[in-house]
C-alpha cells in the first residue's frame, strides 16, 4: 500500500453511527491505522442501518456501515466488564488519537475519561464528538441528524426560498449531511491538536459539538445579522436571485446567475437577440426583479430539450447550467469516470461494491485504496494478542466471560 500522509499514526475509535466513525475513517483514508472498538452485544448501531443488498438486513452488510468503516480493524470489548475496560486502557496507552462519541458522562463514569487516560498517555489526543459538546446547558441533550440539522440552523437555509413559510416546515436535506459535516469538521481540530502536540509535547482533549460545527457554516449570515441587522428569512435567498430550476423535457436544469457576460451568452444561445433590447432585463438588478417574467422565457427554450442537452449547450457558452442528476446519472458521469472517482471494495460476503472515493487527489500521498470494513470482533486476535501481547489461549476465556 502506498504511503499515506498520516501513515505511522494510530487511532483508537469508540464511536457509533456517523460522526465519530467517519472522522476516524477520514484519518484512516490518509494512512493512519484505525482500531475500531465495538460493544460485543450488537456492535455499532450503523450495522442496523440500510441500505442492505436485496433489502435484507445483516449486521455485516449495511452499505452505510461499510462505507463509514473502510480501512479499519475491528475488535469487540465490553465496557461492562473490568477486563474490557482494562484492555481498552492498555490500547489507549499505545495510540496517538482516541475518537469517541459517547455522551459526556459515559467514559468518566467508567474510569475512562480524558483525565484518567491522560495519566496513562500524556501524548494522547482525545476527540470527543457529541451533539452539543462536553459543557453548557445542553450537554446532556440527545440529537440525531434531523435534530442537529435544525438546531444547527440549516433547516431554514435548506427550505428556501419558499413562497409560504407557514405551509412548509424548515427542511432537512437528503442523506445525513449534518452528521457528515460534523465528522469532517472534527478532523480539522483533531489534526490541529496533533500540530499543537508537536509544539508543546502534550496531548489534548478536543471537545467538539455538532451544533457549533453546523452553526459555523452560517457564519456569513450571522455576521450580516449582527453587524447590519440583516435577516435572511425563508422567503429569501443569499444566492443571486436569477438562480432557479427550469423545466426540461425529462426533469429540471439548475441555472445560476445572469451577469452581463452571462446574459449576453444566454440570449445568444437561445437565439433571442431581441431580449437584449428589452427594458425589463437591461441589467442584472432588473433581471432579478423581473425573474418571474424572465424564467418562463428561458423555459420556452429549455422545455423541449432534455436536461442534459440544455446543460451541455449552455455550458459550451460558459453559463452555469447543470442537470438535476439522480444517483444513477452521477454514477454514469464521464467526468467522474475520467478521474477514477468511484472505487470498488471487495467486501467478504458481499463481493465487489462500488463506492464514492477520494474527495481530493494528493499528488505525493494518495488516498488509500479501500479495504473492507471489519465484521464484529474480526481483529480481536491480531490486536489483543499481536498488539497487547495476550496469549492466544486467553481468547476463549475472554469470550466466555463476555469481555469480547
Amino acid at each position: 500500500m502506498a504511503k499515506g500522509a498520516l501513515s505511522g499514526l494510530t487511532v483508537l475509535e469508540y464511536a457509533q453511527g456517523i460522526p465519530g466513525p467517519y472522522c476516524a475513517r477520514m484519518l484512516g483514508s490518509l494512512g493512519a491505522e484505525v482500531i475500531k472498538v465495538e460493544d460485543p452485544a450488537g456492535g455499532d448501531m450503523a450495522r442496523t442501518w440500510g441500505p442492505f443488498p436485496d433489502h435484507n438486513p445483516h449486521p455485516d452488510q449495511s452499505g452505510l456501515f461499510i462505507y463509514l468503516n473502510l480501512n479499519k480493524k475491528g475488535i469487540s470489548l465490553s465496557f461492562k466488564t473490568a477486563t474490557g475496560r482494562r484492555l481498552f486502557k492498555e490500547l489507549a496507552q499505545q495510540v496517538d488519537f482516541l475518537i469517541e462519541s459517547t455522551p459526556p458522562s459515559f467514559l468518566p463514569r467508567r474510569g475512562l475519561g480524558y483525565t484518567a487516560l491522560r495519566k496513562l498517555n500524556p501524548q494522547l489526543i482525545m476527540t470527543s464528538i457529541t451533539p452539543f459538546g462536553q459543557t453548557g446547558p445542553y450537554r446532556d441533550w440527545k440529537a440525531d441528524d434531523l435534530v442537529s440539522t435544525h438546531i444547527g440552523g440549516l433547516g431554514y437555509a435548506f427550505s428556501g426560498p419558499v413562497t409560504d413559510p407557514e405551509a412548509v416546515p424548515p427542511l432537512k436535506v437528503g442523506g445525513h449531511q449534518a452528521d457528515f459535516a460534523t465528522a469532517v469538521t472534527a478532523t480539522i481540530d483533531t489534526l490541529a491538536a496533533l500540530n499543537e502536540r508537536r509544539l508543546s509535547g502534550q496531548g489534548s482533549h478536543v471537545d467538539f459539538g455538532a451544533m457549533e460545527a453546523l452553526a459555523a457554516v452560517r457564519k456569513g449570515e450571522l455576521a450580516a445579522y449582527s453587524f447590519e441587522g440583516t435577516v435572511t428569512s425563508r422567503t429569501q435567498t443569499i444566492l443571486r436571485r436569477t438562480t432557479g430550476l427550469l423545466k426540461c423535457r425529462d426533469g429540471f436544469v439548475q441555472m445560476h446567475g445572469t451577469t452581463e457576460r452571462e446574459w449576453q451568452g444566454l440570449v445568444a444561445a437561445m437565439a433571442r437577440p431581441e431580449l437584449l433590447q428589452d427594458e425589463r432585463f437591461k441589467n442584472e438588478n432588473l433581471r432579478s426583479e423581473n425573474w418571474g417574467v424572465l424564467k418562463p422565457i428561458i423555459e420556452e427554450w429549455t422545455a423541449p430539450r432534455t436536461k442534459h442537452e440544455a446543460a451541455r449547450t449552455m455550458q459550451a457558452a460558459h453559463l452555469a447550467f447543470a442537470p438535476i442528476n439522480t444517483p444513477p446519472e452521477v454514477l454514469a458521469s464521464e467526468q467522474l469516470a475520467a478521474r477514477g472517482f468511484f472505487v470498488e471494495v471487495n467486501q467478504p460476503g458481499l463481493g465487489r461494491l462500488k463506492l464514492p472515493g477520494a474527495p481530493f487527489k494528493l499528488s505525493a500521498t494518495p488516498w488509500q485504496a479501500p479495504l473492507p470494513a471489519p465484521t464484529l470482533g474480526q481483529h480481536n486476535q491480531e490486536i489483543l494478542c499481536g498488539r497487547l501481547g495476550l496469549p492466544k489461549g486467553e481468547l476463549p476465556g475472554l469470550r466466555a466471560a463476555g469481555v469480547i
Partner: protein
Amino acid sequence: MKRLPLEGIRVADFTRIQAGPQAQAWMAHLGAEVIRIESHTAADTLRQMRGAAGEDRTLNRAPGFYAFSFGKKSCNLNLRHPRAVELAKGIIKTCDVVAENYAPGAMERLGLDYQSLRKIKPNLIMLSTSGLGQTGPDAGYAAYAATIHALSGFSSLTGYPGEERPPALMAMMWSDALTATTGAFALLAALHYRKRTGQGQHIDLSMNEATVDFLPEPFLDYTMNGRVRGFVGNRDEAAAPHGVYRCQGEDKWVAIAVSDDQEWQAFCRATGHSEWASDPRFADAYSRWHHQEELDVLVTQWTKKHIPQEVTEVLQRAGVAAAPSANIVDFLADPQLRARNFFMEVEQPPIGKGTAAVVPWKLGPKPDGVRKAGPNMGEHNHYVFHDILGLSEEEIEKLIKDQVIY
C-alpha cells in the same frame, strides 16, 4: 506563552467567494498567517455583497466577507500585469501553502501552477479547489454551489416528500461549506506529512466529489438494489414520529426524533397523552412509521400550544431528542453557544462592532482560535511588499501608480 497550533505557517491565499476562503478561515483561526492576494480588477464577490455595493468603492463593508476573513491579511496584486506575477512568486517563496480556486488552467496561464511554483519553492503545498477537479473532460464546467448541488445528485434528494414536485431550492452554499472543510483537512494532513518528510504536494480538490462523498446511501442503494431514492424531507426511513412541527410564534418550529419504543413511551408520558401510547396504530416503531401522517397531526396539536424551547425542555428531560429549528436570530441568544464561548465581539473597521462565530471546538485549556478583525482591501500592502519582500517606499509608490499593486 499561548501558542496556536499553526503558528509559523504562512499561506498565500488567492481564493474567492466561499469554498476557498472558508478553508483558509479555518487555517487563520488555527494561527496560520493567511495573506489574501486580491485585486480591484476582480474583487471577491463576497466583498461586494449587500452594504459594499454602490456608494462605498473600498469594498470594506460586507460583514459576510469578514466572517470568512477574520485574522487574515490582505495585499493587492493585479495579476494581469507580469510584474505582479513576479511579486506573487516572491511572496510564495516565503510561504508554506498556496491556496487557489480559479477555473482550472488559470493559474497555469499565469505561470503560477504547482509544477512552476515547486521549482521556486520545492516543499510547497498547494491546494487547488474547483467545481469538478483539475482534470477530465468537464474540468472547465462553470460551477457554483447551486450547479454542484444539481450535478452531484444532492438536489435530487432534497425536497418535501409527497406529490411530484421539483427539488427544494437551497438558500445557502452547502457544497462550498463542506468542500472548504474537506480542504482544510487535506491541508493539515499534507502539512503533517511535510513536517515528517520534508516533502510538499499538490491537492486537487473537487466540490462535486466532496459533495458526493457525503451521500453514500443513495449511491449504495442504487448499486445494491437498483433503487433510485427521492425526497424524504424531515422523515426517517424507519422511525416515527420524526419531523419538524409547528409551534407558537411566527415561523417557529421544533424538530423531534423518536428513535425507539422506549422513547415513544417517554414521549407520550411527557406530553400527557397516555392514550397515544395505548393506540394500536402507534404500538411499535413499524406501526408508527406506517401511520406517521396521522401521528404527525396529533403531535402538531400538542406542539402548536407551545414555543419550541418549551417542547424541547419537556422532551429532552424525558430523554427524547428534540430542539428548536433555529434561524440566525436564535443563534445570538442561544444559551449553549453563549456558554461555550462560540462568539467573539469584534471591532471590524470600518463597519463597527459586531458578534461573529469563531471555531466550533475547544482544545482544553489551550487557545482554540484567533479572535481578531479581518483585513480591509490591501490593508497589508506595506507589510507584504516592504517587510516581507523588502521593496523601498518609492518602488511601492510606483507599483501602486502603475496599477501593479491594485
